[in-house]
């Protein structure tokens, strides 16, 4: 038999704590009958739904109830940060370079693991209805793919698209593929780490800086919008004024200059630590499935699910997990006040 007194206890205890705090309520209340306990939990859940309080956790013997509604985790984010606003697609994992900090360990020896034209096309088609506002293609080095122009076209047909590249392969047939891409809807994001060759080449290989700079110039000359992204050790990310000045001389607008820290992922021996608890997800698709974030697309702990389609379900899954992580973090903060 359900114990209605539990609701009185809950209301009493909620009244003694500030909105936003939680109480843990024993739902066994002297009974070991599993059905009775389940009924008690159902009653508490019903009351919480109707009263504007949040049942944030349900255990076999107790429930955790937040006074008032849980804050809307997604509403608290900048609109651009809402998971699924940007969709990342790893077109392939092989690369002409072997960067020592590559977050997904790409190299000439890496298996291609291509996402494939069909899946990219279907993702692009499903993206906008699922709330995606921007598509981002990355690798590996996407220009190693013989059909990269088709992949890009299937994306730009639906949404503004960014294509990440090292900018070193704009020759011959690959240059022709570049020239077939939609300059109105495509931004090229080219990797360059320093204003002079030494630092860039030390991580990416001899002469890679020179070819990347040439690639930036070519892409600009071809009329593309070009972003430049630098990957730096975290301690150097604030010493970038000379580098930014150099990018200015190349014709890269300030808003197209991206500085990011090396992450301790993939081939990197050190770097900033990123976990699902600390990282706002950016839905990322590879040939293997759905991942939390592009920086961790080979980290098993950040694998979300194998099923890519429907894309809307995959995005919803990532959002659900994100909200759950944030709520758990909030509860931990309740338990461990810092002052």
């Amino acid at each position, binding site marked *: 038999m359900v114990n*209605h*007194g539990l*609701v*009185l206890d809950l*209301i*009493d205890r909620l*009244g*003694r*704590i*500030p*909105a936003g705090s939680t109480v843990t309520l024993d739902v066994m209340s002297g009974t070991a009958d599993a059905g009775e306990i389940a009924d008690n939990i159902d*009653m508490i859940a*019903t*009351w919480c*739904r*109707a*009263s504007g309080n949040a049942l944030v956790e349900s255990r076999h013997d107790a429930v955790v109830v937040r006074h008032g509604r849980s804050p809307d985790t997604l509403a608290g984010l900048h609109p651009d940060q809402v998971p699924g606003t940007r969709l990342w697609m790893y077109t392939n994992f092989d690369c002409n370079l072997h960067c020592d900090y590559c977050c997904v360990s790409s190299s000439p020896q890496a298996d291609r693991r291509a996402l494939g034209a069909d899946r990219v096309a279907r993702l692009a088609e499903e993206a906008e209805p699922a709330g995606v506002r921007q598509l981002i293609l990355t690798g590996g080095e996407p220009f190693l793919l013989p059909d990269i122009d088709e992949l890009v076209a299937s994306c730009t047909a639906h949404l503004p698209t960014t294509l990440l590249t090292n900018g070193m392969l704009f020759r011959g047939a690959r240059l022709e593929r570049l020239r077939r891409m939609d300059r109105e809807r495509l931004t090229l994001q080219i990797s360059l780490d320093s204003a002079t060759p030494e630092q860039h080449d030390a991580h990416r290989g001899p002469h890679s800086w020179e070819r990347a700079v040439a690639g930036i110039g070519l892409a600009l000359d071809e009329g593309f919008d070009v972003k430049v992204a630098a990957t730096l050790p975290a301690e150097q990310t604030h010493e970038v004024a000379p580098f930014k000045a150099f990018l200015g001389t190349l014709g890269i607008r300030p808003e197209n200059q991206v500085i990011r820290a090396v992450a301790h992922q993939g081939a990197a021996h050190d770097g900033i630590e990123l976990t699902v608890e600390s990282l706002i997800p950016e839905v990322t698709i590879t040939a293997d499935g759905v991942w939390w974030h592009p920086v961790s697309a080979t980290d098993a702990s950040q694998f979300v699910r194998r099923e890519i389609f429907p894309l809307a379900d995959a995005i919803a899954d990532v959002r659900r997990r994100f909200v759950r992580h944030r709520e758990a973090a909030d509860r931990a903060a309740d338990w461990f006040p810092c002052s």
Partner: protein
Amino acid sequence: MIPASTVPRLIGSVAYSPNVVTVWEGMRAYFTGTDTPIDFVLFSNYGRLVDALIGGTVDLAWNTNLAYVRTLLQTKGACRALASRDTDVVFQSVFVSRAGTGFDGLEAVRGRRLALGSRDSAQAAILPLQYLHEAGIGDDDVTLMRIDSDVGKHGDTGRSELDALRAVLDDRADAAAIGVNTWQAITRGEIMTGAIESFWMSPEYSHCTFTALPALSTEWAEAWLADLFAMDWENPDHRAILELEGLRRWVPPNLDGYGSLIAAVAEQGIPDRW
């Protein structure tokens, strides 16, 4: 138009819940952006608050209905009620019993055990007794179980009413008198169906109200009220405050709604200070 003042008026309120701090911090922030800034001070009980208002320590008091009536009596009618919550002008007391007892009106409690909330709770003690008296049921006609869980706060915590309900559920009382806000809280989702039911609801009366003495200028009070009434449920910043304080909008007080409590205080000999 009142010129901007650098000296905020002081509002007194009682700390009946941790959320009171959040409410008044929010109110202070809201009025900082107006020509009628306020600050606040919290008291542990309504007796102290009324004393502070009459003593001039605070300019305005956020009073319960009983605190307003006491202020009215102590100032010989000179104080003014300025504004209430929309929920305050339609307040009710509710008599409840276990479901299935067949109670169908006040007469049903004659000879039974009636649990009341704190003795200074208008909604769960003073007015319920008044309604019984008006129905011809004297104190000796029922076995009263007074549950003084939160004396000093005029029933604001709701704790004594929850204790009265527990007494009914535990069969220590046949019926209980509670405020309509507590009744609404426990019946959300209809979870009490089959356990507790109401068998009599009082006429509507008035509950909390901002109270001022004549020393507060009418000009300032009118300007402050205009700002208060401008708080908008559709504005998320305002809504956060309104929701915590249990209203959708501020309204002018309904003075007629205090008549039953004024009569009860006189008849039951409720002291001026509690």
